[in-house]
């Protein structure tokens, strides 16, 4: 794989990490921190239990689609070259 492609994959993952970090921390999370019930479930609890699986699905999606590219045959040969 070309170096640029590889680094763009890495950037995408880091972006997700940073976004995730923002979305579960202050001040973003403060939006949801209220005792209000939505569909009978506290707002914050609902936020987490929807956001969490969503992020897992995002990982799953990325792994399926980005991971399918011929990931570094070079790495494999590298391994072989080393006893």
């Amino acid at each position, binding site marked *: 794989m070309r170096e640029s492609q*590889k680094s763009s*994959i*890495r950037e995408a*993952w*880091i972006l*997700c*990490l940073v976004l*995730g*970090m923002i979305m*579960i*921390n*202050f001040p973003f*999370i*403060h939006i949801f*921190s*209220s*005792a209000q*019930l939505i*569909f*009978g*479930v*506290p707002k*914050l*609890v609902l936020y*987490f*239990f929807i956001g*969490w*699986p969503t*992020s*897992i*699905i995002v*990982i*799953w999606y990325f*792994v399926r689609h980005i*991971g399918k590219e011929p990931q*570094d045959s*070079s*790495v494999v040969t*590298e*391994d072989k*070259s*080393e*006893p």
Partner: protein
Amino acid sequence: MIAAKSILFMSVISTKTVLLISLGYFILLFLVACYAEKCRKMDNCLLKNSHVYSLSLAVYCTSWTFYGSVGKAATSGLEFLPIYLGPTLIAFTWWFLLRKMLLISRQQNITSIADFLSSRYDRSTTLGAIVTLFAVFGITPYIALQLKAISQTLSILTMPVTAFSSGAGNLFPVSIDIAFLVALLLAIFGMLFGARSLDSSEKHEGLVVAVAFESIVKLISFLAVGIFVTYGLFDGFIDIFQRFLVQFPERQNLLLLGTDQTPYTKWFTLIVLSMMAVMFLPRQFHIMITENTDEEHIKSAMWKFPAYLFLINLFVLPIALGGLILNGGDTTHADYFVLTLPMSAGHPWLALLVFIGGISASAGMVMVSSVTTATMILNHLVMPVILKLNLKAQNLSRVLINIKRLGILGVIFIGYIYFKAIGDSYALVNMGLISFAAVTQFAPAVIGGLFWKRANRKAAIAGISFGFVLWFYTLLVPSFVRSGWLNSDILNNGPYGISLLKPLELFGLHGFDIYTHSLFWSMLFNLAAYLILSFFAKQTESEALQAETFVDIYLDQPLQAENLKRISKAPTIMEFVELMSKFIGEKTAQDAIAEYLNQQEISAKGELSDHDIPQLKRFTERTLAGHVGAAPARIILDNYLSARGSEMEDVFDIFGTVTIDHASSREQLSVLYDAAQIVASEGDFQKTLDGILELLAQQFKFDLCVIRFLEPESMTLMVKSLVGTSSEHFGQFERNPNMDTYIGQAFMTSTTTVVNDTDNIDKPASAQHIKRDGITCLAHTPIVFEGETIGILSAFSKTAKGIFTKEFIALFENLAGQVGIAWRNDQQLQKLLQGREQEREMQIAKDIQKGLLPTNLPTSGNIAIAGLCVPAHQVGGDYYDFIERDNSCYDLIIADVSGHNIGSALIMAETRTFIHARIQDIKQPAEMLQELNGYFLKDLDRSDLFVTMFYLQYNPQNHRIIYGNAGHNTPLVWKKRKQQIEILDTEGLIFGIKKDISFEQRATDLEPGDVLLLYTDGIIEAENKDNVFFGIERLSKVLEESDDLDPPELIERIMTQGRIFTGRRHFIDDVTLVAMKVLK
């Protein structure tokens, strides 16, 4: 009141039943592990399954989270969540972070987090020991916590709740100490499945599969109790939330963040801690990296592991809130709601299932942690001591493996002793997060080490040590105080009354929870020390090399600096094996070396080149590292080599003093040796060429050195490598080399051309460039491969004159030879890469065909003979032969089969066979031609080929030749006395046209000094670019002018003239020449 009622009706299971079922579960675990080991032996490794990998990662969820999450949720609300959200977040980085760690660990045979850090930072023993101590400090109490959970839950399960509220330790209904038994069982398990052999880098199928199995059990049991509480005791999630808010409106803070209980800073800290813990806890490192069999597994674990965490947390809040509702808000036993709720609802068997789930959570953690901690202790604490003691034992491997087993037992029992001694202390209860904070200290050194080459050993040691000290002071000291082991003065007033040093308000920082406070200070000092020292401390050479290996793991690293080193007084293969045997056992060592040699294609007898030995040294070191850790492996090898008096030498050093003025034969040999090293180093072709030129330029102070290779299609000498100050002309390609320039002359004549003083030059075409660039002397030498000039090696000086002495030219030509070898190596590599099987076969055919041509020239002193056959392609249809008859006559044969392919070559071989077989029966040339024609008639007719041949017999007694011709080019004879050329002409058709042809036979007499020249049409039909043939006239002229030459020189001259005429190195047709000179 509800609580009291539920306790009254709580069902209890007999201790005996619980113990029996627990024992049964342990037996099941042993069976699962045995099954996994059996599968491995049958080559069906269960670790190749990505589900097993993902599930085994869930060793992260210990009993602290299994029971503790609910307790945390009931008392502090959502604070339990970050421990699981952190790992989900960090999973985003796994494809580049974890994968990189994995590749490095695999390449370096890394066995633990301590080994990883030690290995990255110059294989430092100190760093390995610090990390190990740190881990032992942070992990062993955590093991105690697991044992505590098992013993406590057992008493809940077998005793009414009211009875155990006063404490855990003294309430066992039976005299057996269950925690001791469990510890013993886990230790046995660890020793059996975690220390099967010394090689820690090998996989432990039994251990990992058992852990994965336990992960399933704990998930199922937790989900079961969750569903039971949510839908059995209540009406689903909504019902629980609504009833909770109605019943305890004052506790709605449990469902919020940014409260006094859980401020956002604490929330953030917990996320960071758990992110680091899931990466750097020794047990996580072990399962994620050491036990990984395939990097592809990371991909599926990236979502499966977070999904597991999500599922196991789904019911934490409902159980906690449900427990509060049913217990009237009493949180005393909130940690055990998962057990007490089903029990009080009259479902003891469900509680038993939960208990088994809890055992799974504890057991998994204890098993993996004890094995990894024992490995770390052995490799980083015990091995350095053993090496210091310099034990003379022949085989340490047995001792070492037993030390490792003892280590597992030791770690678990230290945990047990902790539990017995401080089971209820604050310090132990909070050990989970404290250990998370401990391993977070490894983060800068690990992550920095992966991506930052400048990060060095001193920085890592300082960073981690600072982190350790601050962690101890701000987390452990306060928990010791709260456990009552230290005077609370230190918390309230600071040590010796220095309030700035209060462990919870260090340097006056207050208003934060204990974890945030600790994380801030420990990380600040850790990072600062790490960054500052990385900037300012210098790396050693080996450290920089190791840093590069880690950071650039994805790049090709074919030419490591160590390749340019050699070992003086190097050990043999057998000595390396003996060394390894001492530490890892003879069989393992033999197996390892056999596999290595297979890969390297080195004969086991031990013929190693200087280049192979450093590689073998690295291999030995890595193999040892897999068993005893990187730092000890390095010490073992360094000690061993230095005891032998072997040293790693810098190859370049010994040439540092070579100058042209003092050039002696020894130094010249050194340069050649060095060049051979570069050629043998298997780097890429370009690097090899550059290396040779650099060597040449450096050692002899040339201003410009150039290697050009011929591009046959465009007849251009293309610059392939250039070192020194380029110039307009001499750094450029050379089109259609011809005799007008020095480089052209060197190329056309295949001889070295030297201009020792450019003031005296005889080629005006070159003069202009030479003058303009200020060149004072120059040399071109052909790069020859198998008699073909393939390029030119040139050197130019702008200061010196007359440096090209005879000795130097010999050296220069030899270097060109090395370039030729490098070129050949590259060509062969290319061929191999392209998989040109056919070409190889052609090469074989060529070699065979070459072998068919005569090698022994006639020994008689009366004549001198030489022959040359240059096929246009790999194989050709030309053939010549000299055969000495019994009557001392010589038969000279030259033949040409049409075409130059395998078919022609086969006919040529057939011709030769026929002649050699029948030579004694057939005496006369004409007769031989006739027989051949008859023989070939059928074969040639089928193949569309035809053959021409000139057959000549020379009688040295009377200098008479008799000859016949089958349509071949008529040979030339130089009559010395008459000073003229004669043509040997006679009638005869080519073979394969007609049956029964009669060939005319003629005779003529030669005299001493006469030269006979037989040739094929390849030379006379050689065309120049104006489509003019070389022709018989030119050939005759060369013959005429070469009166004084011996046959080999004559042939060489004809070839040279032919090349000059055509302007090409290669002839289009096969060229064959045979020359015979009558001497007396």
